[in-house]
């Protein structure tokens, strides 16, 4: 819409509703991308819209996009935002939700935009090498939990550590999530297999190698989308919940494809 046309039609109000919508949408997109429940996204958007002087906000939040209308008097403004690259970033969910609950008294769209810029620039809580190490140890611990021993711990830790490293690299190239998952699952499984073989060569064979293989790919199991899907579904946010389940299933099948690929390379001796 050109500026002059907008001005001649509705001097102030439309423009302002549009400004409010920009902030509200950004709040929604940031939260959805950080992997929270759709209703929480809607709630935060609503708080911000009302805090900025709108009378009502209707937000329709799905897993891949947000549609929202903001109302005041007889005026309304609608916008659609597509959301891609959903991940899990609990620090960001917390920061945006906290902002929506504690809006500054003199909140204005431009001021909130600046605050959201700041939230977006917050660096990761833990340095990358530490996260990689944590993922490796966590997957190793999971192998022990399932009933594995030292061999499985080392196999799962090495597989998961390297797998997650490759995954971070491939994500930085913005490679599609399906090939990323397949490749990283195959790498993790193969490395775990090599570790198991290595231990067998030095006289430490194991009969629980399966516990290692399954744990080495655990870092790619879409647990978060499954939990949020359950919470969406019981609130009857059906579209969002079903999309999340579909997303999780696609990733689980990709994982399986990766493990089978690795299996084919070693004559299915891991199966």
């Amino acid at each position, binding site marked *: 819409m050109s500026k002059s046309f907008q001005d001649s039609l509705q001097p102030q109000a439309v423009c302002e509703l549009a400004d409010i919508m920009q902030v509200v949408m950004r709040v929604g997109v940031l939260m959805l991308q950080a992997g929270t*429940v759709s209703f929480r996204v809607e709630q935060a958007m609503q708080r911000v819209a009302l805090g900025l002087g709108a009378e009502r906000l209707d937000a329709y939040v799905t897993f891949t996009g947000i549609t929202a209308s903001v109302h005041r008097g007889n005026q309304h403004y609608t916008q659609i935002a597509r959301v891609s690259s959903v991940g899990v970033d*609990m620090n960001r969910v917390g920061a945006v939700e906290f902002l929506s609950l504690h809006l500054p008294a003199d909140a204005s769209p431009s001021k909130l935009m600046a605050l959201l810029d700041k939230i977006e620039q917050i660096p990761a*809580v833990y340095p990358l090498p530490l996260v990689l190490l944590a*993922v490796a140890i*966590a997957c190793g*611990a999971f192998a022990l*939990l399932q009933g594995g021993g030292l061999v499985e711990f080392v196999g799962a830790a090495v597989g998961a550590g390297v797998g997650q490293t490759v995954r971070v690299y491939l994500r930085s190239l913005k490679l599609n999530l399906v090939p990323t998952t397949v490749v990283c699952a195959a790498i993790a499984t193969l490395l775990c297999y090599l570790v198991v073989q290595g231990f067998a060569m030095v006289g430490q064979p194991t009969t629980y190698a399966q516990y290692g293989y399954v744990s080495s790919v655990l870092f790619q199991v879409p647990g978060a989308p*499954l*939990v949020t899907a359950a919470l969406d579904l019981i609130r009857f946010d059906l579209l969002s919940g079903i999309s999340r389940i579909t997303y999780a299933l696609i990733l689980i099948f990709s994982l399986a494809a990766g493990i089978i690929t690795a299996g084919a390379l070693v004559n299915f001796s891991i199966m």
Partner: protein
Amino acid sequence: MLMPPLISFVYQAILSFVATVGFAMLYNVPKRALWICGLIGAGGHLLRLLLQEIGLNDSGATFFGALFVGLVGALPARRLQLPMILFAIAGILPMIPGIPAYKVLVYFSQGDTLGGLESAVKTLFSVGAIAIGIGTARILTDREWWLERN
């Protein structure tokens, strides 16, 4: 592995704590919530083990484990003003049915359709029990889930 029950419980507690904390770090959970996530993850897992020990079936035990994770997670969420979902996502981690899920793949790849289906059903029941446990906890602790809107 055969271990005396108490040592085995401590062993399981430490491992589930470590696994939960590791994944919480992957999910970029704030530092002040990290150890709480670990405790909740270990608590849910131990409760499940205990219930299995006294004879409850897998799905029932998993349901109560997930219910514990969801209910207990609501407390630090309020106190620390953090999203509840954070504790739920990290806390259910030790209960993920990894082995049954892997067996689906193994059996199907060996042409054992029945075995594959059996493992698939087992996996689904475990995942379902986690989902229902977390869902029940949310309905009990959050009025936005308890009441229908409008």
